[in-house]
């Protein structure tokens, strides 16, 4: 089944929502304080979930496999992925998005604070557009660091492999890689804070309190 066949006219609404959200994120990058502080977004990707993978997801979760069900039960028909440099950037842009009045935040999941058992870390926001021709359209925004994104590409490949040699060992090693990457992300952030705040005379805990 093609995407047009599955989504029908709604496909255009989804595509518009996708464009709308990308424009919104571009706006964030133009903010003077963001331009100055180098907290820029490294990369931004987007997609409309293919009919095939949407049907599969609905089936797996035991929902009816039609358009209405897809638009109500699944948040990520429209998916945006934002890749940042540092962890603090992830939280900064997430906070900015969550404050947008034109968006209704349905759900947020902080997998940096509470990683998945496989080691996955990311910040997910499920949202609904409030007004205009796209009102009611739902989307999912994933925000993560470059380093974690790099990890996730390999983890994603693993998902689609049928037969994996020494599977348990491979998964354990991949989880270890995720932990190492997270530790590196934290160290990088700490060094960046030190460079920005100076090598303090002040020995108190100066860091931001995102966790």
């Amino acid at each position: 089944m093609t995407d047009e066949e599955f989504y029908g006219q709604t496909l255009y609404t989804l595509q518009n929502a996708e464009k709308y959200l990308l424009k919104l994120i571009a706006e964030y990058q133009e903010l003077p304080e963001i331009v100055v502080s180098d907290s820029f977004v490294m990369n931004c990707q987007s997609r409309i979930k293919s009919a095939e993978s949407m049907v599969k997801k609905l089936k797996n979760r035991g929902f009816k496999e039609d358009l209405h069900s897809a638009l109500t039960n699944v948040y990520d028909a429209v998916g945006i992925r934002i890749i940042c440099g540092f962890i603090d950037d992830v939280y900064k842009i997430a906070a900015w998005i969550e404050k947008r009045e034109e968006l209704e935040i349905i759900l947020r999941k902080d997998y940096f604070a509470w990683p998945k058992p496989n080691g996955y870390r990311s910040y997910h926001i499920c949202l609904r557009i409030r007004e205009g021709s796209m009102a009611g359209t739902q989307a999912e925004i994933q925000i993560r660091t470059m380093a974690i994104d790099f990890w996730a590409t390999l983890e994603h490949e693993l998902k689609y492999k049928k037969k994996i040699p020494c599977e348990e060992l491979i998964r354990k090693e991949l989880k270890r890689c995720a932990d190492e990457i997270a530790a590196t992300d934290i160290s990088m952030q700490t060094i960046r804070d030190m460079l920005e705040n100076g090598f303090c005379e002040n020995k108190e805990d100066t860091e931001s309190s995102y966790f």
Partner: protein
Amino acid sequence: MRLLLAEDEKALSQVLVNILEKNNYVVEPVFDGLSALKHLETEIYDGAILDIMMPGTDGITVLKTLRKKGNRMPVMLLTAKAEVEDRVIGLDHGANDYLPKPFDTRELLARVRTMMRVQSVQMDESLMVGNIRLDFATLEMSSVGGSFRLSGKEFQMMKIFMTNPDIPITEDVLFDRVWGTDSEEERQAVWVYISFLRKKLKALHANVAINTVGQESYQLEDVSHDR
């Protein structure tokens, strides 16, 4: 290396202090068991030499209390020649060595050196303070919220904090223990690694934190009530 010496005979204590200091140990003498306990609970030492027979609290009681609290610092007991029973009890309660009086100073020094050397061997494989575990084999610091493998320096520093919870540790002590007294590294390195550890502890949702005490000291503290 900083040693605590608990010996109630003033003259002997003075002799021991002289010998040890001449051999580059920093020695803090106390003259009864209670003061020994107080010092061991509030300050950080690399090892202790305890006389068994002391007024009030004896050396064995000091040792037992120390071990019950999870303190694994190297401890040597000084015993009178006839106290076979005491030596056995002492060793069974976690003394690393004993030395019967009277002793030759060369033997004392050799035994102190040995005691400091074997310190790492008798350590457990992991240590837990609050909800944070430190694994000595893998250098992993973990909680239910996840786990991080620490760098060598981070690990050594965290180990000092976790073996001495609630005790203020000066920047100098941390520096000397992690980098060594001869290191050319800047003292600020201590603060750099503490910053790394603080962020990692937070990311693990730790209920302990490395707090700053006064101008120059840091202390691992329970912060479970702060949240």
